């Protein structure tokens, strides 16, 4: 184990870690927007919308993220759609993928709210969408925070896959370090340690948020 090598390359790897975090945050943020839409479509009274959402979710959960990354980064340009950079492709792939998982999280969250809530809202004359917006979604948002935290952790780890299209995140930087130093053990062990610190930090934050919500439950 060459510690001196690790120390020398640490700033370089941390640069990649910053991009890793950025990609993940954007993936989860945009994925959440997409996920809310998919979740609403999944429970909507319109069969067409439900089918559309189910089709989308099945595709993105049923195919490997790696394949999706290649499809977006290399497949789309062939069709004349230029995304500009590997980072753009990475963000889009992570968003589309996490959107499918988050859509299912929101569907479950919406369906976990007691039926009486929707009935009470509708009986007061509120429309379906008003009831969703003011009554169901605010309660569902609280319940989905723990599974959303898990999705965040999963996506952070999965974002290492975008190294295959040379987006210079943590995994890519570890590959470069390995290639220049011929010390794969040091390179990947350091990357693993950084990933671990990141995921543990996120799970602590989620646990904290959960505790905060529990003390103020239902408010």
């Amino acid at each position, binding site marked *: 184990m060459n510690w001196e090598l690790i120390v020398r390359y640490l700033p370089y790897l941390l640069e990649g870690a910053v991009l890793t975090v950025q990609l993940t945050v954007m993936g989860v943020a945009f994925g959440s927007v997409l996920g809310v839409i998919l979740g609403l479509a999944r429970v909507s009274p319109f069969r067409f919308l439900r089918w559309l959402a189910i089709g989308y979710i099945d595709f993105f959960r049923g195919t490997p993220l790696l394949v999706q990354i290649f499809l977006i980064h290399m497949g789309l340009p062939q069709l004349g759609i230029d995304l500009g950079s590997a980072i753009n492709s990475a963000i889009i792939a992570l968003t589309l993928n996490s959107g499918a998982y988050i859509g299912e999280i929101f569907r479950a969250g919406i369906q976990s709210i007691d039926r009486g809530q929707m009935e*009470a809202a509708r*009986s*007061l004359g509120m429309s379906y969408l008003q009831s969703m917006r003011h009554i169901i979604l*605010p309660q569902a948002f609280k319940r989905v925070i723990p599974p959303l935290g898990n999705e965040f952790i999963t996506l952070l780890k999965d974002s290492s896959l975008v190294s295959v299209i040379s987006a210079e995140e943590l995994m890519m930087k570890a590959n470069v370090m390995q290639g220049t130093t011929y010390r794969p053990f040091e390179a990947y062990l350091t990357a693993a340690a950084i990933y671990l610190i990141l995921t543990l930090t996120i799970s602590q934050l989620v646990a904290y948020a959960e505790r905060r919500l529990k003390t103020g439950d239902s408010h």
Partner: protein
Amino acid sequence: MIRINNLYKNFGSLEVLKDVNCHVQEKEVVVVIGPSGSGKSTMLRCINKLEDATGGEIVVDNIPLNSEANINAIRQEVGMVFQRFNLFPHMKALDNITLAPMKVRGMSKDEAVVIARDLLNKVGLADKADAYPDQLSGGQQQRVAIARALAMRPKVMLFDEPTSALDPEMVGEVLGVMKDLAKEGMTMVVVTHEMGFAREVGDRVIFMDEGRIIEEGTPEEIFNNPKNERLKGFLSKVL
């Protein structure tokens, strides 16, 4: 005020309502009694379309219940109180009451708050405006729920077993609020197991069994001089 003609309701192959006919006049308090599973709640829930009728006709305040626009119009005229309160747990009592008048009637916040405070006062909970539902007892929650329904200025109030989920010592406070409402001339349809309330407050009592209206009449007729054997059997169990 409410006309129900030839109402049928099936859940799959189960017939829950069979040819129910029932008219409710303005300012009338109709109490619906009967054994569990007799279709009382289902009939009530058909009136504001929380259940889709399989057949028949419902007209509320001269609005036929037959289109999406009419359903929302009727729901604004018809307040409903549920067995399990169904208050919105993420909102304070006051906000529970002001939400629908603001969103549906387009009332300003100030206006809605004045009305809400007035109603809280009326149900004896003026000091609970800022409490969340889980900080209130069952009886208090149900009184807030009644205030919430009243805030829409409904012409009819439907009560679906409003005291069945309450501890016995809280039943009185809720029935008291309902009694006051009846005295003020509110048109009410009340599904309940509280025979004392039916006798005292009801203008008319309807007895349902197995999805049909078996007998109806004044409380006097129903409780003191029941004709149908099933009604007699039911009363002997609950009185």
